[in-house]
């Protein structure tokens, strides 16, 4: 089927279950097959998106200010923030790993904040920017969100493994908690977004075109 001939459930006076795809009359409250609550368009979802987005962003700031790891060797104690640790790695001959870390804990989180904000604003303003590209952006954000947890797992592995009494010890810093919270809140923000709203403008355009033609 081509994209132009698509009819939505809303136009047909129906509502589709987002969990099991069963189709019901528009005023059904709960899916009889899987028990999920049915809403044709979740307008309130944008408020949830923004609420989680703000808390997530709020947690991301201290995550970058506090140290992520504190490394104690024989004579020194060193505390590294996320960016500081990456710079340290880059200058000590592991530029590739530094890049991976910078990408996973700076580029991806910031990109996610921008992407979710852009999607939410574009829906609020009924933007007609490419539906396919925005849908792709939504899918990428949904998929990639979980992967930011890598950094937390690295800290967990390092700080449990490197406990060599006097010789060397690595311990997690306060930033790890904030970073984990930030990842979790951004995931919740992306999950709250009702992707069907991206396509609504297309349906409405089609209606007006039909009326004029």
């Amino acid at each position: 089927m081509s994209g132009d001939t698509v009819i939505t459930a809303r136009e047909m006076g129906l509502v589709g279950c987002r969990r099991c795809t069963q189709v019901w009359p528009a005023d059904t409250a709960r899916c009889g097959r899987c028990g999920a609550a049915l809403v044709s368009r979740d307008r309130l979802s944008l408020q949830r998106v923004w609420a989680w987005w703000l808390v997530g962003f709020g947690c991301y700031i201290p995550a970058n200010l506090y140290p992520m790891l504190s490394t104690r060797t024989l004579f020194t104690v060193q505390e590294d923030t996320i960016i500081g640790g990456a710079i340290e790695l880059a200058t000590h001959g592991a530029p590739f790993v530094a890049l991976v870390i910078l990408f996973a804990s700076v580029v991806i989180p910031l990109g996610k904040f921008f992407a979710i904000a852009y999607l939410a604003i574009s829906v609020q303003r009924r933007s007609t920017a490419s539906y396919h590209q925005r849908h792709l952006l939504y899918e990428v954000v949904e998929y990639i969100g979980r992967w930011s947890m890598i950094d937390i797992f690295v800290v967990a592995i390092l700080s449990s493994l490197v406990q060599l009494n006097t010789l060397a010890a690595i311990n997690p810093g306060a930033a790890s908690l904030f970073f984990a919270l930030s990842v979790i809140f951004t995931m919740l923000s992306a999950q709250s977004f009702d992707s069907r709203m991206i396509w609504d403008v297309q349906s409405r355009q089609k209606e007006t075109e039909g009326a004029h033609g």
Partner: protein
Amino acid sequence: MDAARLLEPRTDLIVCPTCDAVYTLDRPEAGQKAVCGRCHVDLIAPRRKAGLQIIAISLAVLVLVIAATIFPFLTIRAGGRQNSVSILDAALAFSDGPLVLLALSTAALIVFIPLLRVLLALYVLIPVVLDRMPAPGSKLAFRMSEALRPWSMAEIFAIGCAVALIKITDLADVTFGPAFWMFSILVVLVVAQDSFMCRWTVWKSLEGLRK
């Protein structure tokens, strides 16, 4: 109550859950896929003998999760000292003060949620594959399993291991324990289990059940 009045579903149609496009329901053959023409999301993707395969994989995952949690995972040696950790040790590394919360959620994300999802999948699928009545509460169980899907992070932990290893190979000598290999297989199986499962087919087979 008005809201409780029974409404009939349109069983001849299917709606794309991500873009709301409506199609007439046409069940694809095993091995074929029904894909939304507008946003290209898979709607139905049945596989031959998927149920049996998923059950077999789930059982393997069950054994591996338990074993991989108990056995030593990584061992580090430097300057005559050595330290072995299991996956649970790694998860519980955040153990002082407010970081306890983080320790508990890490343990949940890499061990308990994957384990719970496997148990739920077995509970739902075994009766269905054996052509019995679905077990009571199957719908709730499958709903939970689906809701937990993004929070099951075993494969992300595996990549985290790789990064951590690169970071410390200069510092110390690291050897892999038996649990490391079990966990590697586990990750492949967990990913396979998710991609074999056709959600639509499972919901369809739970249709007759009341709850």
